[in-house]
């Protein structure tokens, strides 16, 4: 077996450096990725990150699946906010096919995506609290992630790996219970988020543990292709929702919070403010839905939108379209397209090349966690071990997105 990973084999008895496998702190350090650190006392001298333990070859599998079968693969990228990945993929294909969505579908999508963003940020921020010793905050806010999952369950039947929506819209309309649950969430969540902030934002211990730790400059962040809350915490106001609006984000009024020093405290504040902004966006979307015609939940593109089973059995056109979509026989232009959405961790990009076959010729995922994480080992050098642990939580590394 050929090991070309650097392994610290320091047999010098005089050496005072200690080699340590970091973890388990993050849920994925149980075996999904590994950080080997060399320590001088509590200071990190150098580190090596090894990833790839849940590499599932999605890009290869995608070359053998018709478009609609790729949605479940995207679920498993950032599984903390799967609906954003699903929507991103649908929108990539819709861009390729030049399908324009009705406004109501756009707004429904925005609601689902912003709920997932909140769920994603809840995980990250409560875990920063947890890793600095504040378990209470974790328990307080985490139940709202459960409420969000209940909404997803109402919309699509699944909770974690949602496979939500279809190419061309949603598989079904939101039902009344779903809307009731969203309204309930909008009513209850702000109070809980306020309480969460009261517990942490001005907390002396929390500030001491996070402020000024793992500072990153704008220049470094851009040099390392950081995106998402991590980049915004350094002071760059780059948000795909604003710079490249998709799904009618231009219709909404919201702010892009930025930090100044890029430290962990700034990342925490940016994510918190983004949750507030997401609530604002969902409220606006609910308001806008009132003036949209009810019952529209997909675009009128029968040749690309999977028809309901009832129609497939009773209607010849639907049967034909169903067959063609399932067999990957749709007439998609031979072209290549790049589409990016703002995922929980940054710019989630889909680079799709279609050659007219039944499946994509090539599909590449630009995964924000993967690109953000490469800086973890270099930036840990010189850091205290305890700081490196919160640094990792604040980067919100999702193993599924790391490996694809």
């Amino acid at each position, binding site marked *: 077996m050929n090991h070309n990973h650097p392994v610290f084999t320091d047999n010098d008895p005089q050496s005072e450096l200690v080699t340590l496998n970091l973890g388990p702190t993050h849920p994925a350090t149980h075996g999904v990725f590994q950080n080997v650190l060399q320590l001088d006392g509590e200071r990190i001298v150098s580190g090596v990150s090894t990833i*790839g333990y849940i*590499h599932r*070859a999605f890009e290869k*599998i995608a070359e053998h699946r018709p478009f609609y079968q790729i949605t479940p693969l995207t679920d498993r990228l950032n599984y903390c906010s799967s609906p954003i990945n699903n929507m991103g993929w649908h929108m990539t294909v819709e861009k390729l096919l030049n399908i324009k969505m009705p406004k109501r579908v756009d707004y429904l999508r925005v609601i689902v995506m912003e709920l997932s963003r909140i769920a994603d940020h809840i995980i990250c921020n409560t875990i920063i609290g947890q890793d600095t010793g504040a378990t209470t905050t974790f328990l307080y806010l985490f139940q709202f992630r459960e409420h969000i999952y209940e909404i997803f369950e109402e919309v699509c039947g699944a909770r974690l790996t949602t496979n939500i929506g279809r190419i061309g819209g949603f598989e079904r309309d939101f039902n009344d219970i779903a809307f009731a649950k969203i309204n309930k969430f909008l009513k209850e969540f702000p109070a809980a988020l306020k309480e969460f902030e009261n517990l942490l934002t001005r907390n002396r211990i929390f500030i001491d543990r996070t402020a000024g730790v793992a500072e990153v400059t704008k220049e470094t962040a851009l040099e390392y292709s950081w995106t998402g809350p991590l980049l915004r915490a350094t002071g760059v106001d*780059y948000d795909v929702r604003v710079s490249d609006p998709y799904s009618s984000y231009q219709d909404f009024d919201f702010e892009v919070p930025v930090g100044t020093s890029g430290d962990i405290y700034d990342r925490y504040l940016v994510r918190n403010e983004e949750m507030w902004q997401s609530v604002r966006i969902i409220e606006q979307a609910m308001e806008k839905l009132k003036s949209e015609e009810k019952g529209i939940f997909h675009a009128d593109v029968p040749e690309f939108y999977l028809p309901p089973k009832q129609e497939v059995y009773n209607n010849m056109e639907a049967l034909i379209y169903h067959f063609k979509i399932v*067999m990957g026989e749709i007439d998609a232009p031979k072209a*290549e397209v*790049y589409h990016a959405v703002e995922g929980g961790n940054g710019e989630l990009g889909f680079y799709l090349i279609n050659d007219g076959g039944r499946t994509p010729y090539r599909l590449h995922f630009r995964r924000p966690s993967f690109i953000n994480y490469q800086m973890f080992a270099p930036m840990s050098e010189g850091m205290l071990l305890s700081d490196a642990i919160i640094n990792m939580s604040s980067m919100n590394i999702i193993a599924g997105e790391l490996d694809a």
Partner: protein
Amino acid sequence: MEETTLNNDIHVKLTERFGEKVTAVSEPYGLLTFVTYKDVIINVLSYLKEELKFNFLTDITAVHYPGKDHGIAVVYHLHNMVEKVRIRVKVFISEQNPTIPTATTVWKGANWMERETYDLFGVKFEGHPDLRRILNMDDLGVHPMLKQYPLEDPNRVDKKDEFFGR
């Protein structure tokens, strides 16, 4: 497709600077795409970064077109965040000798993107500080995204394209 003025400006500037080294310019879905060659790729990327303000490296990946002279396309996506414009740069390299200079000299963030591309396609980025496999195991021996490696049992006949009129 009609080029937008912004993309047209970029196209003109690139042609002025690199002449015939900038070829096959197209604009699928509004994204300016061109092909260049591996001897000038670093100059092109630096020029785009320094002069045309494409400050952000979005992505590096590759595509395999088996049976062609230069069967591997290395694809760079760059982004000018200020003017909100993206660009796609492609370099076709030979399958037998898939080498290309590393972009880590221009962006440090290219490091893992190039390791991934090396791992999946076997593209050797010359001068890369740490070119090891990143996703697959070290002794895999092949670069699995190349088209000659089938995903499923190649003896299956029920999924062949000819049965579907292709």
